[in-house]
C-alpha cells in the first residue's frame, strides 16, 4: 500500500477526536439520540423483569387477578419499546447521515483543491478511491450497521443492569460471558482480517481482468487471446473462491466460540440462581427473568459480533476520509496591492525540476503582449508542457517568476488567477450528465443562449444540434459517447464561457486524426480570438497561424520569431517544418535526418 503514503490517513486518535468534535457540534441531537436509545433498551428489558414477578406470584399461589397489573405493565412497555426503538434508530441514522454528508463534502472539496504536485504524487486512483469506495463504505455502515449496533449494545448493557437489579450476583454471572465474547472476537478478527483483505484484492483483480477483457474485446479477438484471458480470470476467480471459503471456515469456528460464551453465561446464571434461591436471597421468578433476559440477548449480541468486522472496515475507510478532510487548506496569498492591469503575460528566468529529476527548464523567459498569439514548438521532452503549466500558474517555478499584468501569479488567489488565465490540457474529460451542465461548470450562471453561442464559436453547434436531445443530451460516462475531437471542442467551448483574458492551450489538438485536427485548429483560433494566447504546438500549422513562434529545446529557448522569419533563418524550426510538410513522397525528406536528439 505504498501509494497510500501520498495522501494522509488519520490515526485512531485523530479519527476519534474528529468524531468527538462532530458529535460535540451536534450535542443536542447526540444527547437526544442516546437518551431515546437508553429508553428503548429499558422498555425492551421490562417485560422479562415483570414476567419474573409473575412467576413468583404463580408460585405463591396468587389468584388469577394477579395477572392484570403485570399485563398492563408489559403492554405499556411493548408500546414504548416499539416507538422508542423506531425513533432512536431514526435519530441515530440522522445524526450519522448528517456527519457523513459534512465529511464527504469536505473530502471532495479538499480533493478538488489539492495542489498539482500533490495530486501527481498521490495519483488519481488513490484520490478516486477516497471519494468513491471509502465514502460508500462509511455510508453503508452508517445506514446498515451503526443503528443496530448501538441498539444491541444498549440492550446488552440494560439487560445486564436489570440482572444486577434482580441481584448483583446474577448480574455478575451474566457478566462472565463478556470476557469470553471479547476473547472470541480477539481470536477471530486478527485471523480473518488478513484473509478478508486478500479476498478483496482477489475480487478486485478478478473484476479488473474481466472488465479490461470485456472493454478490450476487439483486441482479445484480433490476437486470439480468449484462452489466456479466460485462464487469468479463472485463476483470480478460483483464488477469490478459496479465500472466501477459508475465511468462512474461520467464521464458523468463531460462531462456535460465541456459542461457548452463551453456554457459560447461561449456566452461570442458572447455577447462581439455584444457589441464591436455596439461600433464600433471590426468588425463582428472579432467576427465571435473568435467564430469559440473557437468552434474549443471543441474537443482538450475535449481530453485534458478526458485524464487527464490517464496522472495522468502515473505520479504516473513515480514517482515510478524515485524513483528507483534516489536511489544512492551501495558504491563500495576500491580496496584491493592485490587481493585474491588462493581459500581458510574462515569464522571467524560470527554472523548474520535478522531484528527483534534473532541471527541465533552465532559465526561460517569455513575454506575450496582450492579444498576441505565441506558439511553443519543440520535440518531446523539451519542457513545453512544463512551461505552459508555469505560465498558467499550475506549477510554481523553482526560480524566476510568471506574471500577468505586472502581478506575479503566485500573489493571486486561485479564483482571481483563474478568472484571468485558463489552460486547456491534452487530457480531455467530458463530465457525465447533460452537455449544457458540463459547459456550465465553466460559468455556472450561463444561459442556454450563451451556451449555444459558445458551442457555435467552436464550430460544435451543428453536431450538438444533431444529438438526441441537443445540448441537453446526457454525455460522458454512461451517456452518449463523444469522439476525442468532440470532447476537445467541448473543452474549447468551456474556455469561451470562462472568458479569461489569457488562454493557454497545451497540445489541445494533438490526439485527433488530421481532418478533425484541422477543425479543431479553427475552433481553437475562434475560442482564443482577442485573448493573449500561448499554444503548445505539435502540429506546426498551429505555429504557422501564430503571431510568433518560440522554439524550445532541452529547456531553453533556441529560436524565436515569426513563422516566415524562422523558415528563412533555416535553423531548428525550418528543419521541423520540412519534416512536417514532407509533401513529396518517395525519397525520404532530408530534414528527417536532423531528427530530434
Amino acid at each position, binding site marked *: 500500500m505504498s501509494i497510500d503514503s501520498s495522501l494522509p490517513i488519520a490515526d485512531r486518535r485523530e479519527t476519534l477526536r474528529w468524531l468527538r468534535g462532530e458529535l460535540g457540534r451536534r450535542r443536542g441531537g447526540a444527547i437526544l439520540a442516546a437518551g431515546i436509545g437508553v429508553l428503548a433498551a429499558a422498555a425492551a428489558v421490562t*417485560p422479562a423483569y415483570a414476567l419474573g414477578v*409473575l*412467576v413468583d406470584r404463580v408460585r405463591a399461589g396468587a389468584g*388469577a387477578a394477579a*395477572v392484570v397489573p*403485570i399485563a398492563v405493565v408489559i403492554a405499556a*412497555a*411493548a*408500546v414504548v419499546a416499539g416507538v422508542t426503538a423506531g*425513533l432512536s*434508530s431514526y435519530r441515530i*441514522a440522522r445524526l450519522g*447521515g448528517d456527519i457523513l*454528508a459534512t465529511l464527504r*463534502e469536505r473530502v*471532495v472539496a479538499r*480533493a478538488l*483543491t489539492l495542489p498539482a504536485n500533490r495530486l501527481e504524487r498521490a495519483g488519481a486512483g488513490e484520490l*478516486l478511491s477516497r*471519494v468513491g469506495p471509502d465514502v460508500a463504505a462509511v455510508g453503508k455502515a452508517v445506514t446498515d450497521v451503526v443503528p443496530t449496533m448501538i441498539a444491541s449494545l444498549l440492550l446488552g448493557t440494560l439487560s445486564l443492569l436489570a440482572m444486577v437489579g434482580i441481584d448483583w450476583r446474577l448480574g455478575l454471572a451474566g457478566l462472565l460471558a463478556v470476557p469470553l465474547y471479547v476473547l472470541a472476537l480477539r481470536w477471530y478478527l486478527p485471523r480473518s482480517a488478513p484473509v478478508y483483505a486478500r479476498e478483496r484484492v482477489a475480487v478486485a483483480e478478478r473484476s*479488473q481482468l474481466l*472488465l479490461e*477483457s*470485456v472493454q*478490450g*474485446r*476487439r*483486441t482479445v*479477438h484480433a*490476437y486470439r487471446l480468449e484462452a*489466456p484471458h479466460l485462464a487469468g*480470470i479463472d485463476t483470480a*476467480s478460483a483464488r477469490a*473462491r478459496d479465500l*472466501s471459503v477459508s475465511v468462512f471456515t474461520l467464521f464458523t469456528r468463531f460462531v462456535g466460540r460465541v*456459542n*461457548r460464551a452463551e453456554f457459560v453465561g447461561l449456566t452461570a446464571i*442458572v*447455577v447462581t440462581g439455584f444457589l441464591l434461591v436455596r439461600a433464600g436471597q433471590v426468588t*425463582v421468578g428472579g432467576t427465571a427473568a435473568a*435467564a*430469559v433476559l440473557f437468552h434474549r440477548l443471543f441474537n443482538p449480541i450475535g449481530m453485534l459480533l458478526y458485524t464487527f468486522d464490517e464496522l472495522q472496515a468502515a473505520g479504516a475507510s473513515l480514517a482515510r476520509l478524515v485524513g483528507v478532510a483534516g489536511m489544512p487548506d492551501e495558504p491563500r496569498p495576500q491580496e496584491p496591492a493592485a490587481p493585474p492591469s491588462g493581459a500581458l503575460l510574462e515569464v522571467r528566468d524560470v527554472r523548474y525540476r520535478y522531484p528527483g529529476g534534473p532541471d527541465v527548464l533552465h532559465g526561460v523567459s517569455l513575454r506575450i503582449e496582450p492579444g498576441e498569439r505565441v506558439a511553443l514548438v519543440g520535440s518531446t521532452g523539451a519542457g513545453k508542457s512544463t512551461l505552459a503549466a508555469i505560465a498558467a500558474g499550475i506549477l510554481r517555478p523553482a526560480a524566476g517568476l510568471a506574471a500577468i499584468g505586472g502581478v506575479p501569479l503566485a500573489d493571486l488567489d486561485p479564483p482571481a488567477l*483563474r478568472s484571468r488565465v485558463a489552460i486547456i*490540457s491534452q*487530457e480531455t*474529460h467530458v463530465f*457525465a450528465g447533460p452537455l449544457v*451542465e458540463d459547459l456550465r*461548470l465553466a460559468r455556472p450562471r450561463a444561459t442556454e443562449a450563451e451556451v449555444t453561442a459558445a458551442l457555435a464559436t467552436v464550430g460544435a453547434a451543428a453536431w450538438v444540434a444533431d444529438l438526441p436531445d441537443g445540448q441537453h443530451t446526457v454525455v460522458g*460516462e*454512461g451517456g452518449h459517447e463523444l469522439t476525442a475531437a468532440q470532447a476537445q471542442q467541448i473543452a474549447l467551448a*468551456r474556455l469561451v464561457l470562462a472568458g479569461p483574458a489569457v488562454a493557454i492551450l497545451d497540445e489541445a489538438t494533438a490526439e*485527433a*486524426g*488530421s*481532418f478533425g485536427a484541422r477543425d479543431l485548429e479553427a475552433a481553437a483560433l475562434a475560442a482564443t480570438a482577442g485573448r493573449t494566447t500561448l499554444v503548445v504546438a505539435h502540429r506546426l500549422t498551429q505555429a504557422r497561424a501564430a503571431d510568433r513562434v518560440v522554439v524550445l529545446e532541452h529547456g531553453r529557448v533556441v529560436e524565436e520569431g515569426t513563422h516566415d522569419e524562422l523558415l528563412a533563418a533555416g535553423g531548428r524550426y525550418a528543419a*521541423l517544418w520540412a519534416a512536417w510538410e514532407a*509533401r513529396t*513522397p*518517395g525519397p525520404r525528406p532530408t530534414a528527417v535526418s536532423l531528427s530530434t536528439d
Partner: protein
Amino acid sequence: MSRSRVMPPVTGSRILWRAVTRNRKRLVAGSGLICLHQLAEAAVPILIGVGIDRAVAPGDGRALLVWVAALGGLFVAVTTCYRFGARQLMLAIANEGYLMRGEVAAKIMHPRGIRTELRAGELLTVSSTDADNVSYLLDYIPRIAGAVTATIACAGVLLSIDVPLGVLVLAGTPLVLLGMQAAAPRITRRVTRQQELAGRASALATDLVTGIRPLRGLGAERAADQRYRDISRQSLGAALAAARAQGWNLAASTAGSALLASGVAVLAGWFALDGRISVGEFIAVIGLAQFLLEPLGLLAIVPSWVAEARASADRTALVLAADVRLPEGTAPVGLVEGAAPRLDVVRLRHGSLDGLDLTVRPGELVGVVAARSADAEALMRVLSGGASPDEYDGTVSLGGTVLHELDLDRARAALLVEPHRTDLFTGTVATNVAATTGSGAAAGTTARPDGFDEALAASAANEVVADHPDGAERAVAERGMSLSGGQRQRLALARALLARPPVLVLHDPTTAVDAVTEHAIARAVRALRHGEDSGERYATLVVTSSPALLAVADRVVVLDAGRARAEGRHAELGTADEDYRRMVLR
C-alpha cells in the same frame, strides 16, 4: 471446464434449478444439519424452563448437574451442526458462484462475439454480482428448511403444553409478520431512491476527480464543489426519508412482536396462576414465543431474497443465451507457400459504405484514405468481425474464400486487424507486445520472442522501455492507463508488427505521434514488412490520413461517399487530385 460444449441453460429458472441439482449432495447434507441446528436452538428456551422448574425451584442439586450436562450437550449440538452444515453449504455456494462466473466470462469472451445490448459495466455486474446472487439460492434453501423445521417443532411443543396457547402463537405470529410486510413496498421504494442518490453522488465525485485537471485549468473547482454539495444534500434527504420509513416500521414491528410475545406470556401466566400449566411450562412458553419470531421473520423475508436470486438468474440467462455474432466457419485459409493470402472486398455495403471494391495483393502495402471517417470505421468493423454476415452486403474474402466461411482461429491468424482505439492489458510492456507469441499470456517469463526489439524500434516504442529502469518489464496498469496515449498507441503498433500476420490491417496508427517520429515509423513499417527480401510474404492495409504513412504505400485508395473514388500513388494523387490534397496534405 464446462465452458464450451455443454449447451447452457437459457432461462433464469433453469439456471436456478441447475444450481440446486449440481450441488445436491452438499445441499442435502448442509440443509439437514442446519435443520438439526434450528431444532437444538429451539430446545434452549424449553430447557431453561425445565431447569428452573426441576432444579432451581425445588433446590435439587443432582437435577442441576443433570441439567448443566444436558445444556452442554445441547450447545455442542448447536455448534457442531452449524459448523459442519454451514461449511458444506459455503463450499456449494462458493463453487456455484465460481462456475457461473466462468460460464458468463466464457460467453462474453466467445471468439465469435456475442450480440448483447449490455455495456461493459453491466456485463461485469452480471459476472460478479448476479453470478453470486444465483449461488445464494443455496443459502436460502437451507434457511427456509431450518425455519420451517423450527416453526413446526415450536408449534408442536406449544400445542402439547396447552392447545389455546399454541393456537394463539400460530395464528398471531403470521398476523404480526404480515403487518410488518405492509410497509415493505414503501421502504423498498425509499431505500432504492436512497441507494440511487448515493450512487449518483459517488459517480459525480468520481467523475469530477477524474476530470480534475480540466476543472483546474478553468478554475471550475468551486462550481464542481457546489454541484457535489447539492447532490450530497439530496442524498442526505433521501437517506433520512428512508430512515424515517424504516424507523416507523421498526417501531411497529418491535411493538407488534413484543405485544404478541408478551400477550402469549401473560396468557400462559394466567394459565399458570390457574394451575393449568406448570411454572416450567410457563417459562418455556415465554422463551418459545420469543424464539418463534425469528424463524417466522425469516420466512417473511425469504420470498424477496429468492426473487432477487431469480432476477439475477434472468439477467445471467440473458447473457448465456445471447446469440453468437459470427457463424462458425470451417474452411482453411488458402495459403500459398511464402505468400500472404489476397484480401478482396467486393461491392461491400455496410453502414455508410455503398459498394466498396478494394483488393490487397500479396506483398502490397496499400493505403486507404476516407473522406468520411464513418466509411473507414465501417470497413474496419467488417474486416475485424465486428459485423455479422447478415449485417452487410457484398463479399469479403481472404485467399479466395469468403471470410465468414473460414475457420475463425486460422482466419484471425492470417488477417490481423489492430483497432484504432488501442487496448492494452494489465501486465508488463513485454506481456502486452508479445501477446500472441505465447510468452504474452504467462507473465513473469523474461524470454523475448524473436523480433521483439525490432518491433519496438519500428514503432518508436523503444523509448517507452529505454527511459524506464525496468525496461521491457515495465509494469502496465489496468487498460494501459499508466502510459500516455502516444505510448499506448506505439506499443499497440509494436504488438501488431511482432505478431507478423500475413495480412495486417492498421487504422490510424500514428495519430498521437509527432511528425518526425511518424516519418520514422512509416519507413520502419515499410522496411519490416515490405523490405527487399520480404517478397510476397506480407500484405498490409493502412487506413489513415497521414501523408507520412501514405507516402510509403505502394498504392493509395481514396474512399468517398462509401466507395473507392480514386487510386494511385501518393505523389500522383497529391499533384493531380485537388480533393486528395485537401484531405491529406497539410
